[in-house]
């Protein structure tokens, strides 16, 4: 299962990309539209010409045609062959690589079982749902014992709930196969769930390649910080486990109650739009509700970012322009803030 190296690779918007994807690693390429994510996949698959070098396990691949690279590719539009049944779609690559009939039959059945699509065996792609097509396309991409798997937006055709479930299943599948995988995802949260490392791309350059946690807690550039939503990072001074599955942490003079997952929490990242701001005292329990003072107002195109001071802790919040105008907030004003529990992310 190879290690993939891109050295000074240039094509279209991509500028001198240097990237190493370790053996059996799952790397997610994340970035805005047009940042060059899919171009990297196409370069690895050998589907387009490029400048620079690509190595699989130190073997130069630049002149190796796509059909000899042993790279499975799940395209965003899936492109299941409409003239073949589900089983024939999955068997296609095995046939092209001249595996014996017995191996083909065993492998197709094994994958259909693993991806729960055995009942679709004789159906044609036109009659499948989006999720079913996704599963068939994955089975087809990995069927011929590929060493590398490229996945372009693997959950794009699924609804949010199905996508979440499917990501977990996909991660287990990839880890089980011990395959090197590169995914393109537009959703950072989705990438965090599935990838070992995340590469953030912007305008054809890699801004940062790190573990998901590091992207969140140590963004290296302004762009990355902006892309991940400029989270507030709070360092936890003390942790105190409460009953009912909660833990209370202190950061400076703030006390925050969080769900307890059995581990000590060192840091928390809170996205600015996960902090509610109100000029009147909100109803309900006082859990994670604080008094704060506005220290800075930064108007942007459609939102307004507001810096507040909570007992010495500086936090960044974000509200829509309409909400800001309704509340008529001003510098030095006392406000209430509430931190949403469900969107907190921890470093343990």
């Amino acid at each position, binding site marked *: 299962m190879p290690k993939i190296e891109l050295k000074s690779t240039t094509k279209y918007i991509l500028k001198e990309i240097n990237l190493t994807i370790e053996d059996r690693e799952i790397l997610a390429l994340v970035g805005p539209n047009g940042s060059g994510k899919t171009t990297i996949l196409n370069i690895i698959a050998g589907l387009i010409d490029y400048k620079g070098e690509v190595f699989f396990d130190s073997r130069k691949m630049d002149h190796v045609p796509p059909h000899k690279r042993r790279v499975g590719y799940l395209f965003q539009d899936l492109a299941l062959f409409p003239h073949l049944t589900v089983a024939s779609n999955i068997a296609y690559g095995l046939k*092209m690589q001249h595996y014996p009939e017995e191996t083909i039959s065993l492998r197709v059945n094994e994958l259909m079982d693993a991806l729960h699509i055995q009942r679709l065996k004789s159906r044609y792609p036109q009659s499948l749902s989006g999720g079913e097509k996704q599963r068939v396309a994955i089975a087809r991409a990995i069927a011929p014992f590929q060493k590398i798997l490229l996945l372009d937006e693997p959950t794009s055709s699924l609804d949010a709930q199905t996508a979440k479930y499917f990501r977990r299943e996909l991660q287990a599948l990839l880890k089980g196969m011990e395959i090197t995988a590169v995914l393109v995802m537009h959703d950072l949260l989705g990438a965090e769930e599935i990838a070992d490392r995340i590469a953030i791309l912007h305008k054809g350059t890699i801004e940062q390649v790190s573990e998901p946690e590091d992207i969140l807690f140590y963004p290296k550039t302004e762009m990355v910080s902006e892309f991940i939503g400029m989270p507030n990072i709070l360092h936890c001074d003390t942790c105190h486990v409460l009953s009912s599955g909660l833990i209370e942490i202190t950061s400076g003079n703030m006390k925050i109650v969080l769900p307890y997952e059995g581990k000590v929490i060192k840091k928390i990242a809170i996205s600015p739009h996960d902090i509610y701001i109100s000029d009147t005292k909100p109803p309900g329990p006082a859990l994670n509700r604080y008094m704060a003072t506005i220290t800075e107002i930064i108007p942007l195109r459609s939102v307004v970012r507001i810096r507040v001071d909570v007992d010495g802790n500086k936090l960044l919040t974000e509200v829509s322009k309409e909400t800001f105008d309704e509340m008529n907030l001003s510098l030095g004003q006392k406000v209430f803030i509430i931190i949403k529990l469900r969107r907190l992310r921890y470093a343990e």
Partner: protein
Amino acid sequence: MTFKRLSISMSFVVFIMYGGFILSLFYFYNGRLFLEIFQSERTLFSIRLSLFTATVATLISVFFAIPSAYALSRFRFPGRQMVDTILELPMIISPVALGAVVLIFFNTPFGMFIQGKGIQFVFTIYGIFLAQFITTVGIATRLIKAAMDEIPVRYEEVARTLGASPSKAFFTVTLPLCKRGIIASSILTWAKALGEFGATITIAGSMAMKTETIPIAIFMRLASADIEGTVVLVLILVGIGLGILYGVRFLTGRSMPM
């Protein structure tokens, strides 16, 4: 009158025009004569010759048209524009002129060498093959290219990543996916070859029981003022033509890809 009504009316005007012309044939129709001419050796020879030459010419045209159409549909290469334009030649030049071009070619030293040492085209059945081929290969390529353009390149890319070489990707994915388009294009090419007259008579002549195809037989009967005989042959040609058009619609389930 709304635009919708206007467009529907226009289509009916065209239909009535063609229908009127065809119905007018029955003014001179003679049932007894129909059977007599239809069963005559000369007519049966013309029918057999037309069907045979159109089939051979279509097979040769499609053999060249499939790879040419694929190249024009998928690749950007030097001279592509030139090839594309040349393929339109049979559509913009009269078949008689095209036939004359070929006939003149066979009067050049190289042409005479081919005639002498290779195949004798002028005034033979091979001339009919050649005439029908040169007038249909461009159209066949156009029609097949249209069918291939409809198949996304993505399918071939998928096949390539699964281990298929470019030729295997073509034969296992692209070709099966545009099979219906190719069949429909072949049938239309065949129909065009069957009705070919100008280039055929110029190259192969109009020798009865040798190079007389149905369109040439129609011309010969008309030239000798045999209206009733002409009607019989036209009706035979129309019958075959309509049969083919319905065949295309049956195969494609829609209008022809022209």
